[in-house]
C-alpha cells in the first residue's frame, strides 16, 4: 500500500511534443523578415515600373547602393543582436561607432607619417576596434559587477562616448590621408564593394559565434533564464563583460569602415544608426525580452531598413516618410512577436 511500482504509476508521455501549428508559426517568425524583405522589394519594383517604367531591383546600381547603405547599421546590429538575445540592450553603440571613426582617422594619419600606407591603414582600423572596446569594458563592468540595468548603463556610456568622440575630433570631421583606406571604402572586387565583402565575412563569423560556440549557446540561455544559466555553472559576470566588449568592437569596426567610406572620421557617424540597429534586430525576429534571435534574421532586418530608406528616395517620396515607414515596421514586428509569445504562453500553461 505504501510503495507503488513504477509500472503502475507510469503515465505515457504526451504523444506530441512539437505542436505542428506552433513550429509552423515559429518558422514563419524566423523567416518573417526575409518574407517581408521580398514583399517590400516587389512593392518597390511594381511602384517603380508603374511610376517611371524603370526597374528597381534589377538595376545593379540600386542593389549595390542598398548593400553599401546597409553595411554600417548591420555591423552595429550584429553586436546588438547578441546583446538583445542576452536580454540586454546597448544604447551606446552609435557614439562608440563615432568615437571609433574619429580614432581610425587620427590613428591612420599619425601612423602614416612613420610607416607604409597599408600598414598605417591596418593600424588605424586596429586602433579603432581596440579603443571601441574600452567603453565596452566599462559597460560590461557596470552591468555585471555593479548590477546597473543595461538600459541605464549604456545610456550613460552613450553620453560619455559622445563627448569623448567630439572632443577627440575637435568638434569637426577628421579627414583621412591614406590612399589604401580610401580604396577600402570605395573600391570593388569583381564589382562587389570591399565594404560589402568585409560585412559578409563578418556576418558569417558572428553567425558562427552565436550558433556554434559555447559563448553563443550561453548567450541564449542567459537571455531565457539567467538563474538557470548561473546554476548550470556559467560565469554570468564574465559572459556579460565579454558580451558588451564584443558589441562595442562591432561598433568599432563599423566606425573604421565609415571612416574608410567617407575618408573622414566624424563623431556623429553612428548617431542615426543606433535606432536602426535595434530596429534591424527586432524586425529580424529577435525578442526584446531576450532568449531568441538570429544573425541572419538581423541581416534581413538591416536590409529591410536599407530598402525602405533607399527605395523611398528612389521612387521620389519625401525622405521624411522613411522614418514613418521604418517606425511602422518596428511596431508591426513587435506586435507579431508579442502575439507569438501569447500564443505559445497559452499553450504552455495548458
Amino acid at each position: 500500500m505504501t510503495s507503488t511500482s513504477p509500472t503502475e504509476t507510469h503515465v505515457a508521455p504526451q504523444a506530441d511534443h512539437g505542436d505542428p501549428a506552433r513550429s509552423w508559426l515559429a518558422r514563419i517568425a524566423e523567416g518573417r523578415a526575409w518574407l517581408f524583405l521580398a514583399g517590400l522589394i516587389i512593392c518597390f519594383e511594381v511602384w517603380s515600373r508603374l511610376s517611371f517604367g524603370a526597374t528597381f531591383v534589377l538595376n545593379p546600381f540600386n542593389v549595390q547602393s542598398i548593400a553599401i547603405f546597409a553595411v554600417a547599421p548591420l555591423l552595429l546590429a550584429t553586436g546588438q543582436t547578441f546583446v538583445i538575445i542576452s536580454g540586454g540592450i546597448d544604447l551606446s553603440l552609435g557614439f562608440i561607432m563615432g568615437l571609433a571613426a574619429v580614432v581610425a582617422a587620427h590613428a591612420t594619419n599619425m601612423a602614416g607619417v612613420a610607416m607604409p600606407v597599408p600598414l598605417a591603414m591596418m593600424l588605424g582600423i586596429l586602433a579603432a576596434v581596440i579603443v571601441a572596446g574600452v567603453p565596452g569594458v566599462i559597460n560590461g563592468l557596470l552591468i555585471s559587477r555593479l548590477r546597473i540595468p543595461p538600459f541605464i548603463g549604456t545610456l550613460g556610456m552613450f553620453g560619455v562616448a559622445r563627448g569623448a568622440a567630439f572632443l577627440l575630433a575637435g568638434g569637426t570631421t577628421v579627414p583621412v590621408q591614406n590612399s589604401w583606406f580610401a580604396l577600402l571604402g570605395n573600391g570593388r572586387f569583381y564589382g562587389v564593394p570591399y565594404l560589402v565583402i568585409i560585412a559578409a565575412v563578418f556576418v558569417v563569423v558572428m553567425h558562427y559565434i552565436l550558433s556554434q560556440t559555447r559563448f553563443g549557446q550561453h548567450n541564449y540561455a542567459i537571455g531565457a533564464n539567467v538563474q538557470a544559466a548561473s546554476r548550470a555553472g556559467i560565469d554570468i559576470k564574465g559572459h556579460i563583460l565579454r558580451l558588451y566588449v564584443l558589441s562595442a568592437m562591432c561598433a568599432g569596426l563599423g566606425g573604421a569602415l565609415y571612416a574608410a567610406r567617407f575618408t573622414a572620421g566624424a563623431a556623429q557617424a553612428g548617431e542615426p544608426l543606433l535606432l536602426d540597429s535595434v530596429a534591424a534586430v527586432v524586425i529580424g525576429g529577435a525578442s526584446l525580452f531576450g532568449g531568441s534571435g538570429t544573425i541572419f534574421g538581423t541581416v534581413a532586418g538591416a536590409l529591410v531598413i536599407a530598402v525602405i530608406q533607399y527605395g523611398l528616395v528612389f521612387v521620389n517620396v519625401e525622405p521624411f516618410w522613411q522614418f514613418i515607414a521604418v517606425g511602422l515596421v518596428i511596431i508591426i514586428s513587435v506586435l507579431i512577436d508579442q502575439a507569438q509569445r501569447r500564443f505559445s504562453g497559452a499553450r504552455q500553461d495548458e
Partner: protein
Amino acid sequence: MNSSEQTAPLLEVRHLSKHFGAVQALNDFSMAVGPGEVVALAGDNGAGKTTLIKAISGVFQPTGGEILLRGQPVTFATPQEAREKGIETIYQDLALADNLSIGANIFLGREPMRKVFGFLPVLDRKAMAVAAKQTMGRLDFHVSRLDAPVSNFSGGQRQAVAIGRAVYWDAQILIMDEPTAALGVPEQRKVISLIHQLKAQGRGVIFISHNLQDIFAVSDRIVVLRRGIQAGERKISETNHDEVVKLMVGG
C-alpha cells in the same frame, strides 16, 4: 532492510544550524540518506526545509554542524562544488533554459564540441541529442522531437529533463524542492515514477513535499521539520498520515 549500520550513509548532516540574524532557521538538525533511499522532508511553511537544502547544496554555509559525504566531512563554498561531489539540487521553476533543447539543457555550461574542417570547433549537437535520448530513455521518458525547445514540453516533462540532467552527470544524491507542486495529477504521478527510477538506480533522494499522498507513495522515510528543529523521523511503513500531520503542526 537497510544496512546503514555497517556502511556510512551517502549523505549525513549532523547538528546543522543556520541563523539569519536573530532568526534561527535551522537548529541542531540531523538526518541521513543511504543509497537507493528516498527521504521525504516535510514541514509547514517557514519550517526551514529550503534553508536545509541550501545549506547542503552549498548555496550558503551553515552556522554550525557538519555535512558528511560517505562518512567524510565536506564543506561546499558554492553550489558548483556540491555538484562536483555528486549532489544535485532540482528547483521547481528555475532549472531550465526554455528556449534550448533537452540536450542543450543537459549540457548547459559544459557543452561538447567537435571539429569541422579539422580545425573549427563547433557545438556537437548530435552528441547532445544522442545523450538526451539515452538519458531520457533511462528515465522511461521517450521523446520524438529532440530538437524542440523545452518550452514545448509540459511541466512534468520539464521536471524530467532537470532530473535527466542530474542523472546524466551521475549525481548520487538528488535534492528536489517540491517537485510535484504546480503539476497536474498525471504529471505528479510521472514525477513520482521518476523518483522510483532514481531509487532503483541506487541514488539517494531527498524530496520536499507538502503532499502526503506523494510522500507515502515514494518515500522510505520521512523527516519532519518544525521551526528549524527536527520534530520527528519515521519509517513510512511504520507511520500514517495522522501521525505525520501531528508532527508537522506540533502537539
